[in-house]
């Protein structure tokens, strides 16, 4: 939709944050802006809350590790503006010599919760300020590392027998508990009318 011309948000970011913008490019019609790790959260908030930008929907948080081992890992934020109907991709580079950590954006988008957990699980990138940073695809206590890292062997680090043993000796209830799946705590976050409706029906608040 944008053709090959860069999304004007890239220029706006450049003007507003200057030194925090490491680079901007266009790839396959998508504008990619690389930003400094320390200011990523601030920049994402600005993109979300500034009326002219209005990137109110976080499509995905993911990460990339390149085969070139010298290159840093990248955390990728794919944004979409529902009112303006434009995409913007933000990247944060994490050099491997430093601790892999970046600020969580769960306070901006609740939907980032599980996305960031997945990135943590697969790449070992810590999200500072995440309310519940646990593994999500692999089970809690999975001891072999972070599977999508390039130094992770395809078949895992342990022997097949050890993998089977670890799998068989864990208790499913510990990690797939009713509490984990319960929606009761989301009740307080519902809108007023939805809550009242549930209460009349004898829902969590009423029961």
């Amino acid at each position: 939709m944008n053709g090959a011309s860069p999304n004007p948000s890239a220029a706006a970011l450049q003007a507003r944050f200057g030194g925090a913008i490491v680079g901007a490019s266009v790839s396959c019609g998508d504008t990619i802006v690389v930003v400094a790790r320390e200011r990523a959260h601030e920049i994402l908030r600005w993109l979300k809350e500034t009326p002219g930008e209005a990137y109110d929907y976080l499509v995905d948080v993911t990460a990339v590790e390149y085969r070139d081992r010298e290159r840093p890992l990248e955390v990728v934020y794919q944004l979409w503006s529902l009112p303006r109907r434009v995409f913007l991709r933000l990247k944060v580079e994490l050099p491997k010599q430093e601790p892999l950590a970046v600020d969580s954006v769960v306070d901006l988008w609740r939907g980032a919760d599980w996305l960031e957990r997945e990135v943590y699980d697969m790449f070992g990138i810590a999200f500072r300020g995440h309310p519940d940073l646990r593994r999500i695809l692999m089970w809690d206590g999975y001891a072999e590392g972070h599977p999508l890292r390039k130094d992770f062997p395809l078949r895992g680090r342990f022997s097949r027998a050890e993998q089977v043993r670890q799998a068989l000796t864990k208790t499913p209830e510990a990690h797939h508990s009713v509490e984990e799946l319960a929606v009761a705590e989301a009740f307080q976050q519902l809108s007023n009318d939805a809550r009242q409706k549930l209460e009349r029906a004898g829902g969590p608040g009423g029961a």
Partner: protein
Amino acid sequence: MDVKPGAVAAGGDAAAGLISSPNWITSRLDDLVNWSRANSLWPMPFFPACCAIEFMATAASRYDISRFGMERLGYTPRQADVLICAGRVPFKLAPMLRRIWDQMPQPKWCISVGACASSGGIFDTYAMVQGIDAIIPVDVYIPGCPPRPEGILYGIMLLQKKIKGESILDPTLRVEQLPDERGMFLRPAAVDELSEPFGNSVHQTRSA
């Protein structure tokens, strides 16, 4: 059917000799018991992936497993005779599969449907059990990715054939397998051997 030959023999009467060794009566009884078991297998479907679609086709009207007395899919392990595992089983799912198997009462059998359930299939990775025989004992393996309904029916018929060869006098058949002190059901070396890649995948490297 819980027959303990030793216990009966302690009675020391004619009945003891009657069923502690194969004879005309016990082989007729075997025939009857096996005929009824083989023709009223109640499956417990354990369908973690795509092979399940083929089983659904097998269960539906065109292939119609009710011809084999199997149309009642259990969905509860406590009222099932044969666990049908159709699909790849990740390590995360392994304890659930084992628990469902443990919840099934004897007599019970297991059919492993498809390449993944039987050997890990294309998923020779960190996440996947390389054949459910590392977790539970399997009676019939059905190859294919996925097997056609004819293949699944053939597997069911093989299982029926196996059941018809069983004897109520065999005390080893209905023994529950208990975990050893490591929490496993097979020796580690046996699991490693079962999980070895075969076919093309031996040419893959062990590293990343």
